[in-house]
């Protein structure tokens, strides 16, 4: 059995595969050790690196951890927009641009409050707040420069939520004081689509396509690359651009195929210094 090859192929569609294999959910309790043993036997080097990434200090698959992960990102975004609004460059923006940033900021703050309540509601302890690194922010010396970072943050946020949805599958509804009964997965999805709306608007403000075609001015940044880059044109082993692949007599362009599916980022990728990780700090 070529387990190495299987894992490799799995990783193409889901780079977080090893993280998923180690979830706490009961169905995998026995699987974990088995797969680890099997995997180690098959390709120790690759898997070691996989595990290192996938387990970056947390217990993957725990909904408390997932929501704290989301909370960290929302803290970062919320602080970034607060800094943006407080910045001397804010007044240089048009009224419409200011209104848009305020609306987005309002949502990020709402997400922080919601996620804190959710983490508490499911028996966890909200992760401490993080802030956007002041020195980095200080280097953004125009509204336009800040907006670039806003785009990167939003597009990364979209990818990050997408990468964790699977970890929330099957969770029961929870009742949270002051909020009511929510389904954890559904709430995460509802935040996720708001982040996508934000991303689209900021891209639009920057005269970029609202969706990611690969031709944007920032599309080569690490935020759009990763194990599965946004330029990916194969979904679940289906090649979207090969002639007659999904539609007789129709061939879709790589740009259209890439733009029609957003891609995931793993927690390790998101928290990497090249992406959100490098922006967190005092």
């Amino acid at each position, binding site marked *: 059995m070529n387990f190495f090859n299987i894992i490799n192929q799995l990783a193409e*569609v889901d780079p977080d595969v090893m993280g998923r294999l180690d979830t706490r959910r009961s169905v995998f309790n026995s699987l974990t050790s088995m797969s680890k043993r099997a995997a180690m036997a098959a390709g120790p080097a690759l898997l070691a690196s996989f595990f290192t990434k996938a387990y970056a200090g947390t217990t993957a698959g725990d909904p408390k951890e997932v929501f704290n992960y989301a909370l960290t990102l929302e803290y970062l975004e919320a602080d970034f927009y607060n800094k943006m609004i407080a910045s001397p460059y804010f007044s240089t923006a048009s009224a419409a641009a200011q209104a848009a940033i305020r609306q987005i900021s309002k949502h990020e703050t709402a*997400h922080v409050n919601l996620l804190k309540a959710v983490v508490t509601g499911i028996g966890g302890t909200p992760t401490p707040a993080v802030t956007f690194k002041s020195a980095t922010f200080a280097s953004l010396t125009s509204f336009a420069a800040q907006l670039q970072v806003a785009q990167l943050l939003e597009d990364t946020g979209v990818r990050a939520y997408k990468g964790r949805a699977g970890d929330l599958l099957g969770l029961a509804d929870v009742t949270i004081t002051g909020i009511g009964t929510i389904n954890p997965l559904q709430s995460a999805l509802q935040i996720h689509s708001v982040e996508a709306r934000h991303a689209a608007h900021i891209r639009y403000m920057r005269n970029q396509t609202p969706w990611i075609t690969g031709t944007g001015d920032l599309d080569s940044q690490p935020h759009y690359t990763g194990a599965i880059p946004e330029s990916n044109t194969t979904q679940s082993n289906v090649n979207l651009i090969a002639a007659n692949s999904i539609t007789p007599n129709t061939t879709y362009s790589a740009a259209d195929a890439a733009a029609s599916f957003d891609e995931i980022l793993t927690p390790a990728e998101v928290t990497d210094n090249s992406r959100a990780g490098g922006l967190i700090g005092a």
Partner: protein
Amino acid sequence: MSDNLQPRGSDDATFAQPLYTPIKRRSFFMYAGATAGASALVLAGCSKDSDPVKPNLPTGNSTTADGSISLGSGDVGVLNYAYALEQLEADFYSKVAALSNGASLLGATEFAYFQQVAKHEAIHRDFFKAALTRDAAGQVLRNLTPKYPAGTFDSKTTILATAKAFEDLGVAAYNGAGKLIKTPAYLVIAGQIVSVEARHAAYIRDLITPGSFAADDQVAAASGLDMAMTPKEVLNTAQNFITEKLSGDSIGVNA
């Protein structure tokens, strides 16, 4: 293997095949889903296949007692549900993209963007068809016949209003259907698509009212949550635009 990790309607026979069969020749969602796929690989020899679909749950594309077309049950139901919505969206945008006066009606840049959106939706539609054909052969929803109120394609106002309505509905539909999915891979796919739908929605909203990309009528101000709707709510509405009568009563329901 746990019952709730296997896509309903997948080709169970593949479990019995040798493990060295290349993934691409297998039922791809079992592997794409990583957990389901990997556990199936590892545990193939020590777990029982799940029970067959209970006969009282409708299969995809079957005709119900009242003459409706069933979207099917379990994950197949969710996929057919998404496929139905993508058929509608793709049809709508293909008609917009084909307008001979599109550039003058919508503006050249906007028309070009609409043509991109038309491609995105066509890809979504065709992707679902390909996925369903491979994973749930025999249960693939038939080609639907969309219908629109008179005048839908006559003015910028009605085109934009219809696009906004469809995109916001699509986002709410995916957001509400996520929790009905049993297979992680399907959920990831849905997540990959819904954010693109949300991008479309934001763009079209901005065309109608600048700055309304995530306005309070769509994103709750207090919680910052986008809309989510149940399949029943969505289909009640979508039915207005689809000639065939659809039944989504068993979407996400497993035996």
